[in-house]
């Protein structure tokens, strides 16, 4: 805990330094990144210690605002979330040194660095807060600091719209949290999380509290249909901020849900788990389908966050089912899958957003259909992006596979149980996860295949150059982590059990057999993953040996007899995804604008398609315009006469006095 406080003070004292050196932009970046890195190393090492030895450390401050004292608590669950937050933030900060070097028209650089540090600190305090008030204040700072980062380029209309949407969404979510916390505080007479967990929030309406938590935290996490802010805010924010927001900030929602379980458990209704599993499947499938339909790379990645939050909540749901039916194997595997996927997603999604940023930095382009052939021009970005793509799809030997495997195996466990509800959940989740996996593979085949290979589809991509060193460095570290975790899953899962224990309240020996079994599975998975790499290398040596004497030749791509193929004739992302859009058109409702070539010597023809978010167009827009219309009827109250406003206040006061007597 002491180390964490030192870390926060380092971050805090970086802020005045940034203010002093605000004129020297490059120095600002280096200072901020150095501060963030130092604090993060300290926090990660101390958090690792906590999760590995299953400790709980607390520290209490005197505070005279609403509450007597504010407690910070680092238990294994909190420590588990601290690790990805600090890891990704420090790498994103290093990346930011290179990324921010391009001049922008929005927020000055020192301010955006200060907001970055505030975002990191607020996430940090959200995780270690042991008190509702501290939590809510940090939660709010987190929302506001990330809002300023989303509107960094505030001169652009799209950034303003995105920021506005984000601000509304996050506050609507927070309302539910405030109600949840106030209710809990009234019930127990305290804002202390530890007390809530110790005594349990045993109220008849605990299901209602659970739903409030799902809505409140789900808005931050991005459950469908609460996800609408994600595909707007992520593309607007600078890429290293998108990486942090998508990689770790939305995970505070998952953390919140897990923390809520410690208060509402251990006796919980069966339907919660079923509900979370199906919410996860829906988020996953809808997220990945909308991702397939996107042309904007960062929007596509944002929809994949919705998908991956879906996968995480499937695991979470299995864990809850395990708790409610007291099936220890499900509790362990479900929560393990959710936690592992949280860690893994922060790494590969961070990597992919940094990759998108690298492309944007070098070409200024976000539209996939204008890219192509970037692997030859940006070899390191390309290789890192490929690793990220394979990891997010869940292919062995990368890290995405091991977390999806945990959830898949929990699905088999469900199906082999005797309870029909659990069996149906298991079958649905396996089918759902398989569909999500297949669609995600299609989406990243499309993303990598159209962006990085083939011929460049635009001038900007033809002239693209590799990004500066700090950016490449961060991406390569993350890519290496994807492979490392994928190959050493059996070691990595030793950081999981203590966090699972914190959520479920189980004793270690209760799930030890499942833990050992899963470890055993992961050893074999790693062996096969390693073997894939070795065998491919062997084949490569053999092939090169065979070809070395035969001098292979190069030629243009076989064009089926066509004389002059051009880069324009390549398959595009839109054409690649077209079969999916056709099959799922009832959901996606892609709008195409076609101008066909006309007459004998056609002049201009064009095709353009867009896929607006269904929750946005079908749910929120009608809802809010109705609300607007209804409230407009009360507009007569508002006419600009100050005297009348004072009269309202006086009337209200009189009414209150009358009511009190």
């Amino acid at each position, binding site marked *: 805990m002491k180390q964490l406080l030192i870390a926060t003070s380092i971050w805090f004292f970086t802020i005045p330094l940034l203010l002093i050196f605000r004129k020297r932009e490059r120095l600002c970046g280096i200072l901020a990144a150095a501060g963030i890195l130092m604090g993060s190393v300290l926090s990660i090492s101390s958090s690792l210690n906590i999760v590995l030895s299953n400790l709980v450390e607390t520290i209490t401050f005197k505070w005279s605002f609403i509450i007597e004292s504010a407690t910070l608590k680092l238990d294994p669950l909190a420590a588990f979330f601290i690790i990805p937050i600090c890891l990704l933030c420090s790498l994103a900060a290093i990346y930011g040194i290179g990324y921010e070097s391009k001049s922008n028209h929005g927020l000055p650089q020192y301010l955006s660095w200060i907001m970055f540090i505030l975002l990191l600190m607020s996430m940090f305090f959200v995780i270690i807060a042991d008190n509702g008030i501290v939590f809510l204040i940090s939660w709010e700072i987190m929302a506001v600091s990330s809002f300023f980062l989303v509107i960094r380029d505030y001169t652009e209309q799209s950034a303003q719209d995105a920021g506005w949407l984000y601000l509304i969404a996050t506050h609507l979510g927070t309302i539910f949290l405030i109600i949840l916390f106030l209710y809990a505080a009234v019930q127990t007479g305290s804002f202390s999380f530890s007390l809530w967990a110790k005594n349990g929030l045993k109220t008849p309406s605990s299901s209602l509290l659970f739903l409030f938590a799902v809505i409140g935290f789900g808005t931050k996490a991005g459950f469908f249909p609460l996800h609408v802010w994600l595909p707007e805010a992520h593309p607007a924010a600078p890429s290293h901020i998108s990486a942090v927001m998508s990689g770790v900030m939305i995970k505070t929602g998952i953390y919140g849900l897990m923390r809520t379980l410690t208060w509402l458990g251990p006796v919980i209704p069966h339907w919660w788990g079923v509900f979370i599993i199906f919410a996860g499947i829906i988020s996953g499938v809808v997220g990945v389908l909308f991702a397939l339909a996107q042309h904007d790379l960062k929007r596509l990645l944002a929809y994949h966050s919705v998908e991956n939050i879906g996968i995480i909540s499937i695991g979470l749901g299995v864990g809850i089912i395990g708790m409610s039916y007291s099936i220890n194997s499900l509790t362990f595997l479900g929560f393990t899958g959710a936690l592992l996927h949280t860690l893994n997603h922060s790494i590969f999604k961070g990597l992919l957003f940094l990759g998108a940023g690298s492309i944007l930095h070098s070409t200024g382009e976000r539209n996939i259909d204008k890219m192509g052939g970037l692997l030859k021009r940006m070899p390191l970005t390309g290789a890192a992006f490929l690793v990220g793509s394979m990891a997010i799809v869940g292919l062995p030997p990368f890290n995405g596979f091991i977390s999806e495997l945990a959830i898949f195996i929990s699905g088999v466990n469900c199906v082999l149980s005797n309870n029909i509800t659990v069996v149906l959940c298991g079958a649905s989740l396996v089918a759902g996860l398989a569909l999500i996996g297949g669609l995600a593979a299609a989406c990243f085949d499309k993303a990598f295949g*159209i962006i990085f290979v083939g011929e460049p589809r635009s001038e900007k991509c033809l002239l693209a150059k590799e990004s500066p060193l700090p950016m490449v460095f961060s991406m390569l570290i993350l890519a290496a982590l994807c492979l490392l975790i994928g190959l050493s899953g059996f070691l990595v899962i030793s950081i999981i059990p203590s966090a699972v224990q914190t959520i479920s309240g189980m004793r270690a020996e209760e799930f030890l057999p499942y833990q050992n079994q899963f470890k055993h599975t992961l050893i074999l998975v790693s062996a096969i993953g390693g073997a894939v790499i070795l065998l491919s290398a062997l084949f490569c040596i053999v092939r090169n040996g065979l070809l070395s004497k035969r001098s292979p030749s190069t030629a243009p791509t076989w064009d089926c007899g066509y004389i002059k193929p051009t880069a324009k004739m390549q398959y595009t992302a839109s054409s690649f995804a077209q079969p999916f859009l056709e099959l799922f058109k009832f959901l996606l409702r892609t709008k195409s604008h076609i101008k066909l070539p006309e007459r004998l010597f056609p002049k201009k023809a064009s095709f353009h398609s867009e896929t607006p978010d269904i929750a946005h167009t079908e749910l929120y827009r009608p809802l809010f315009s109705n609300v607007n219309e209804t409230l407009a009827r009360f507009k007569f109250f508002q006419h600009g006469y100050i005297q009348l406003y004072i009269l309202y206040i006086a009337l209200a006061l009189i009414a209150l006095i009358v009511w009190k007597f």
Partner: protein
Amino acid sequence: MINLESIISVLIPLVTAPLLLGIINRVKATIAGREGQPILQPYYDIWKLLRKSAVYSKTTSWIFRLGSLISLAAIILGLTLIPAGPIPALIGFKGDIFLLVYLIGLARFMTVISALDTGSSFEGMGSSREVFFSALSEPAILLALLALAKIGDAYSLSAIFANISAETWFYKGASLALIIGALFVILLSENSRIPVDDPNTHLELTMIHEVMVLDHSGPDFAAITYGSALKLWINSALIVPVLLPIHTNNLSTDILLWICGMFLIAMVIGLIESSMARLRLTVVPQFLVGATVLAATAIILIYI
């Protein structure tokens, strides 16, 4: 666990798999009244390709050079998870079915990005269709394997197949039949056979698998041809133990029976290819979703 003595379960397919393609071709030729190519033709083809040089497209990068090899490696490692009749798989563990499906997924991912690496719109079209159909068949294959896991009451392929016997057909027959149906549809689609794709053509209407590998040549193409034979073997090996769950305590008889079962599957594929036309592309999704429905029904039927 790793059973080193079952290394033979990997060696048999490595040697025998191309024979399946030969059998399919021979059956088709016989029905069409032709003499047909030698039954060992796939071996000659692979051998011929291995001795040739290669031509690489100027557009391609290292992805193209590595893609076919990584695909082959992934499929060969998939074989280590497949039991050979009475012999348990080389490697078996709780949840190996998922690793198997995802290894095949890895192979496909590499094939697809290698195809896109050429920048050819034909290969782009093939890739698009390949990922489209495979995304739809993924739930079907996992649900079918899950139903098998429920019937065999086990977590790994070797244990599942060991627990399914002729007796199982008496009380779980309906489910088993549906599972075989689903697995067979997936076999046809994953290995680009009629009615989903036509392996004999690589142009125009049937551009799926064959068109993706249009630009491969020499040893790379040998790896692809060999890989697709092995993949066909894997898909068949998931069906045979369910179709012919005969355990006679005599190892060599069982192995022989199992290999005959594999050849039987190849003959059935040949029969289908001779008697059916390819489905319209727009109908294929229904065909694949049908397989998912079959597998889901199988799971529900286990309870009745």
